[in-house]
């Protein structure tokens, strides 16, 4: 018998596909992984572990999207809260509470950032005290 090469042809025949079991399972799962961003080449010809990595990556993506939606909801909630003073009936407030000056912190502050923040707060209070002193002293001049 003439020796033959190992690789056979992989022409796509629908009738043949329907009669094979594992190939049918592979085809059934293909759209799921394509939707995750996996290419058809990676799915069919890549390492078997790649599908596991794609599933884990998809899980992380969903978690991140969930957190982003939650933060977005938090900003909406705070914006509505800021407007409550002027929305209440018989309220004397003429303006809403100012919106957040900076984004909500999503990372823990470093030691240096904490020190810088405390310094700024101290300097703000000090400058207000000096201003008050000037105003107060000017009354007696």
């Amino acid at each position, binding site marked *: 018998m003439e*020796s*033959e*090469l*190992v*690789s*056979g042809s*992989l022409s796509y025949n629908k009738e*043949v596909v329907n009669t*094979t*079991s*594992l*190939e049918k*399972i*592979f085809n059934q*799962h293909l759209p799921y992984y394509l939707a995750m961003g996996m290419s058809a080449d990676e*799915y*069919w*010809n*890549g*390492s*078997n*572990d790649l*599908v*596991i990595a794609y*599933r*884990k990556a998809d899980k992380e993506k969903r978690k991140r999207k969930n957190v982003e939606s939650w933060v977005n909801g938090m900003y909406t909630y705070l914006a509505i809260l800021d407007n409550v003073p002027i929305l209440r009936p018989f309220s004397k407030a003429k303006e809403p509470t100012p919106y957040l000056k900076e984004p909500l912190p999503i990372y823990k502050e470093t030691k240096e950032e904490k020190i810088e923040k405390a310094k700024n707060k101290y300097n703000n209070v000090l400058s207000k005290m000096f201003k008050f002193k000037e105003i107060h002293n000017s009354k007696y001049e």
Partner: protein
Amino acid sequence: MAKCLNFNFEGKDYTLEFNKTTVATMERQGFNLQEVDTKPMLTLPKLFQGAFMMHHSSIRNEKIDKIYDSMGNKTELISKLAEMYQDTVATLMDESENEEGNIQWKVNW
């Protein structure tokens, strides 16, 4: 890490592995892992040959037969190849099945 089998034969390194394309090709060529118990003499050489498709598709069957004859511990070899073959579909299963909290079961055979 993907399951593969490495060895050296006549100065050349070989890697045996299965992917979905090679498994589909083997099925089209008539291979059925379920028949390994009823038709071992037909099934086992095909399983071994199929493992070359992914990384050594141009190798000839005669060379594969020669390599197979030289391999030691054939029982373990075939068991590992079967595991690698089944891994192509096993990896499609959700890993949450392996998480803690699930009932641990065992068979008595």
